[in-house]
């Protein structure tokens, strides 16, 4: 559940989600669930000309299984806290 908890910390931040079909969407992280499904608000597609059908989409739900990357804000992660949490998770606690 580490990554679920981690993504929950990022709610409200601006992220870019790149999907396995190369579609990249930038938006404010609204919520995330245990499957790492993602809901974004105020979305805009990075390459808008290539995806005209996404023009009027402002809120969207992305299925966790189709996500390739999530690009985080520069200050999106405190490495020390993440290290500790990773060790704790690895120990099974």
């Amino acid at each position: 559940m580490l990554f679920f908890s981690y993504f929950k910390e990022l709610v409200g931040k601006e992220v870019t989600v790149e999907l396995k079909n190369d579609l990249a969407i930038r938006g404010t992280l609204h919520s995330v669930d245990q499957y790492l499904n993602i809901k974004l608000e105020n979305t805009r597609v990075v390459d808008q000309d290539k995806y005209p059908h996404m023009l009027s989409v402002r809120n969207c739900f992305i299925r966790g299984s189709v996500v390739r990357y999530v690009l985080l804000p520069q200050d999106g992660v405190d490495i020390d806290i993440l290290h500790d949490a990773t060790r704790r998770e690895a120990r099974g606690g």
Partner: protein
Amino acid sequence: MSWAGPDEILLSTSLAGFLDKKLIVLLRDGRKLLGTLCSFDQFANVVLQGACERVIVGELYCDVPLGLYVIRGENVVLIGELDREKDELPSHMTCVSEAEIRTAEKAEKEARDLKGTMRKRMEFLDFD
């Protein structure tokens, strides 16, 4: 079984906030379905009422009516809410009939295949 209250719906990743809204559903094969969300579950299986497929070829598009659709969750890539205030497509795009869009699709496929075979034949030149 308990039902989520309005606040929980708004804050969760659940699709409940999209019920009765006009949505665009992108599928794994690249198809784009439009329709009103009737139902969903935790796998993102969804039921769309008044579904249609939006076929886009270059600057042309066509909404092909389909009816009531149940989409298996594994095929879903993205579900987007269509903002009624905004234009669904750029203004330079033209709506055409289903027959016209099929012709355009075929022409595009042929052009793509031709490009493929030309490239194959020229492979010995080793470009890139």
